[in-house]
C-alpha cells in the first residue's frame, strides 16, 4: 500500500512511500521517547522526510509553533541542532541549558516543571540525567515530548541521524557489518542504534573493555531478535569485515569511581596508521556521536573514512523532519 504525504500548510509537496502501511503509525502529536517504539517502516519514513528537508525549503511550515528546549545535562550538538531545526522551519524556541537557574534548583519535581512548561509551548525537547525521565514527562502532559537523552538509556533522535548518515554514506542500511567501539555499557547511542539496526539484517561486533561491555539485557534482546552479534576486546581480526565503525567516547561523567575511569581511559585510540596496519575495507566509514576526547586521532579527519562531522550536520535535517512530523504539519 502506498502512503501519500502532503503538507497542511501553504507549502505543498508530494511524494510517495513504497513501504507497507500496516506498520506505520501517525507521527502527529507522538512522543519520541525510545527507538523501541518504532517499526522499521517508521524509521525509514523519517529518513525519507529528512532527505526531503535537505532538498527543499520549508522555511515557514512551523511558523507560530514554540519549542521548549529543556536541557538538564550539558549538550552542544543535540540542543543546537534542535534549535536550529526549529528556527529554520519558522518556529520559535524557549528553554534553558542551565538547570541551576530554574525552579529545579529549588527542588521542584520534574513532573511539576513539565506540567507548567506545557502551557508555554507546543512541543518539548528534554534531556535529563535520570533514565526514564522523558517517559515520565510524556505521561504527565498532552503535548509531545522528544527525548534528547535520558541518562544512559535512550537518545532516539541521535539514532535517527545515525541511521540517516549510514544510509547516506553507504547507500543502504541493509546487510551491513558494523563494529561498535568504546563505552558500550553507558553509551545510550549504541544501545538505541543497535536496536534500530536489528531491523536491517546487520551483523554487529561489540568491541569494548570487559568493564564496559554492552548491558546483558541489550545483548539478550538483540539475540532474541536473531541478530548476529559478537563481543570482542580488540579490533584485531575483525577490522577487515567492517563496513562501519561506530566509535564512542568513554564517558567520565557516568563513572561513580574515578579509579575505574582511569583504568579504561584512552584504551582505544583510532588513527589512520593504526587502521592501515590492522587492515580495513576501502569504503569503511567511521561514525562518532561526538564529542570525542582521545578515542579518535585528528589524522582520521581528512580521510574518506571520517563522516562524523557530516553526521553532526545531519542532525538538522533529521530533527527538522521529526519536528515537522510530530507537530502535524505533515500527514
Amino acid at each position, binding site marked *: 500500500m502506498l502512503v501519500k504525504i502532503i503538507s497542511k500548510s501553504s507549502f505543498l509537496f508530494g511524494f510517495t512511500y513504497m513501504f507497507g502501511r500496516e506498520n506505520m503509525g501517525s507521527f502527529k502529536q507522538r512522543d519520541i521517547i525510545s527507538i523501541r517504539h518504532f517499526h522499521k517502516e517508521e524509521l525509514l519514513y523519517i529518513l525519507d522526510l529528512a532527505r526531503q528537508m535537505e532538498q527543499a525549503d520549508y522555511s515557514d511550515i512551523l511558523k507560530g509553533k514554540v519549542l521548549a528546549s529543556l536541557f538538564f545535562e550539558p549538550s552542544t550538538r543535540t540542543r543546537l541542532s534542535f534549535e536550529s531545526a526549529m528556527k529554520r522551519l519558522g518556529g520559535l524556541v524557549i528553554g534553558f541549558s542551565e538547570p541551576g537557574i530554574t525552579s529545579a534548583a529549588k527542588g521542584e519535581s520534574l513532573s511539576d516543571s513539565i506540567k507548567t512548561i506545557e502551557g508555554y509551548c507546543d512541543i518539548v525537547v528534554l534531556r*535529563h540525567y*535520570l*533514565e526514564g525521565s522523558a517517559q*515520565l514527562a510524556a505521561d504527565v502532559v498532552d503535548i509531545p515530548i522528544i527525548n534528547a537523552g*535520558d541518562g*544512559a*538509556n535512550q537518545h532516539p533522535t541521535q539514532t535517527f541521524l545515525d541511521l540517516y548518515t549510514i544510509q547516506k554514506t553507504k547507500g543502504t542500511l541493509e546487510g551491513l557489518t558494523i563494529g561498535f567501539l568504546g563505552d558500550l555499557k553507558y553509551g545510550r547511542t549504541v544501545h538505541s542504534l543497535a536496536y534500530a539496526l536489528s531491523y536491517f539484517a546487520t551483523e554487529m561486533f561489540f568491541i569494548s573493555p570487559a568493564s564496559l561491555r554492552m548491558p546483558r539485557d541489550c545483548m539478550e*534482546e538483540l539475540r532474541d531478535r536473531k541478530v548476529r552479534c559478537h563481543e570482542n576486546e580488540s579490533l584485531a581480526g575483525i577490522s577487515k569485515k567492517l563496513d562501519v565503525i561506530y566509535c564512542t567516547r568513554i564517558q567520565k561523567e557516568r563513572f561513580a569511581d574515578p579509579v575505574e575511569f582511569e583504568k579504561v581511559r584512552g584504551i582505544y585510540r583510532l588513527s589512520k596508521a593504526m587502521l592501515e596496519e590492522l587492515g580495513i575495507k576501502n569504503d569503511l566509514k567511521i561514525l562518532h556521536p561526538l564529542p570525542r576526547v582521545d578515542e579518535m586521532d585528528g589524522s582520521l579527519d581528512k580521510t574518506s573514512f571520517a563522516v562524523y562531522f557530516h553526521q553532526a550536520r545531519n542532525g538538522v535535517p533529521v530533527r527538522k523532519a521529526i519536528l515537522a512530523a510530530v507537530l502535524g504539519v505533515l500527514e
Partner: protein
Amino acid sequence: MKHLDVSAIKDGSVIDHIDNKSTLKVADILNIHNEEQVVLVGMNLTSKLLGKKGIIKIGGKIIDKKEVNKIALIAPNATVNIIKDYEVVKKFKVAVPELIEGIVRCFNPNCVSNHHNIESKLHVINKNPIKLRCHYCERIMSAKDIVLI
C-alpha cells in the same frame, strides 16, 4: 500423615502450592508478623506438582489484589482459597498481570522511578521465566532482580 484440610480455619485465606523455597517470602508479602489471628505456615509438604510445597493459612484475612500480584511474581504456581465459615467460597490460581504497578522497585538506581515520588510501573514481557521491563528506564529485570516494595 494427616491430610491438611484447607477449611480448617473458619474465615480467611489459604495460599497453597507455594514453591517451597518461596514460602517465607510469601509470608513476608502477607505481613504475617502483624497478624493477630491464627496463622499457620507449612513447608516441605509433599506435592505432586512441585515435589515439595509450602502452604500458609491466615485467619480473618482476605488477601487483596496487590498481594496476589506480588505472590504471582515469586510463587507463580500458588493457588488462593478464600474461606468463609469453614467452606472454600472462592479458589483461584495466581496470575502474573500484564502490567505491575507499585509493587516492584526498578533495580536501576538511576531510574527516575527511584528518584521521584511516582509509582513504579513494569511491563511483563515474559511470564515464565519472569521478565519485566521498566516502563520508564526500559531496563529488563529477571526473577533475581525483583525487589518487592
